[in-house]
């Protein structure tokens, strides 16, 4: 059996892959049992692999082993913190879940603040381009696009400004004429 698998495993995998792909694409023709069967197989495989990878490469070596074999008992707090989320299902003890949700919201807020400073500020700074054209080493398409953007923006903005000016003038005239 081992010799057979060793010799034909690649062929078996390729044929199974081809069969599965055809089964999934058969939905394009119409809904059918063949598609349904392989849809469930795919979902089961993905879920199974996800659980296996999470347990074998994260939970076991980085949490369970450290807690039980390497003496880092304090990792038990990660479990307790995780369990706190589930109190959201209890009306009486929902306040416990709010503690952990609040903590995570705080972490995320901090990271988002940092992300704005490090990610968007350089992009905003880079968007200020000279209309007269960059040095010859710069990319010509960037300058051309910048000019197009600037002109488009002005074309969009001017009617709005004009409408706002006209609107305020009309309002002033109405006020002066005593019209409500």
């Amino acid at each position, binding site marked *: 059996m081992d010799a057979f698998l060793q010799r034909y495993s690649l062929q078996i995998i390729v044929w199974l892959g081809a069969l599965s792909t055809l089964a999934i*694409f058969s939905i*394009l*023709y119409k809904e059918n049992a063949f598609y349904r069967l392989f849809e469930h197989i795919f979902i089961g495989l*993905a879920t199974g*692999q*996800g659980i*296996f*990878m*999470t347990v074998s*490469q*994260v939970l076991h*070596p*980085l949490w369970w082993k450290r807690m039980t074999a390497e003496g880092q008992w304090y990792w038990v707090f990660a479990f307790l913190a995780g369990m706190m989320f589930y109190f959201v299902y209890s009306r009486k003890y929902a306040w416990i879940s709010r503690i952990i949700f609040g903590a995570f919201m705080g*972490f*995320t807020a901090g*990271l988002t603040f*940092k*992300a704005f*400073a*490090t*990610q968007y500020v*350089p*992009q905003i*700074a*880079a*968007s200020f381009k000279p209309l007269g054209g960059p040095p010859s080493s710069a*990319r010509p398409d*960037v300058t051309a696009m910048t000019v197009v953007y600037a002109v488009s923006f002005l074309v969009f903005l001017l009617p709005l400004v004009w409408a706002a000016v006209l609107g305020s003038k009309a309002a002033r005239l109405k006020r002066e004429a005593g019209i409500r």
Partner: protein
Amino acid sequence: MIILRALLNIDRRIMYGLLCLTIVVMLKWPVKQPLSTTHAVKGVYDAVEAIPHDKIAIVSIVWSSSTMAENGPQTEAIMRHLFKRGIRFAILPWDQQGATLAKDIAEKVSAEMGKTYGVDWCDWGYRPAYLYQILPALAKDIPATIKKDYRGEDVRKLPMMRGVKTIHDVGLVADITPSGTLDAWISQIQGVYKTPIVFAPTLVMVPEAYNPLDAGQIKGMLPGLPGAGQYEQMLNYVGFGQKGSGALSGSFILIIVLIILGNVGLVASRRRRPEDGGGD
């Protein structure tokens, strides 16, 4: 009139069949397509060329089997270039399926190019995709954050990890992804430590990457399958990037032809006289 009516009512199954046939034929008998190298792809090549030999590269894998057709060739091309230059790299998978698929690609390419696990490359093993939480710790202490590779071995004991302590020992991060993970790499790594990043997204994600590219936050980009094809061309080998780009072009041409046919049928049917049963 019959032809016009037929053009307006082509069965979707016929269109799917034609699309399938086009892709199969063009993958089986690839048409050599001239691919011009874009500024973004050249940026990736230059960034890999600029990695100092005393630093490692991180190949961040966020993709799974659903986008393998695009992200797989990108991963292979980047790995080939790193091996070719003798730059050590570590795979950092954030997806359970991608962890296995990227490792398979690395094993295949390393066997072809005579490279050794642990010496020329390693796999840090799957990590849940909490990039915002993991990356700040990774930047400060790589071995303490990663701890073990996918085989459960201490990463400190791998020969390629000797001297690798912080993000300052990393010369390049290649983010290969169909998801919005680039923001995390830029905000937590590039923006803080100035570590060069290259980006290999799927084709639909390309427009949103032009802002960081123009701002210099990423050194280059491989736009989907054509990006991988262009990179393969620069590395002088023919992989799925080039073969697949031909099939992709063929399918786009077919879609354009179908759209034209549909519109011709619609316009012509409106021009028919009312007594012929035309018009709206």
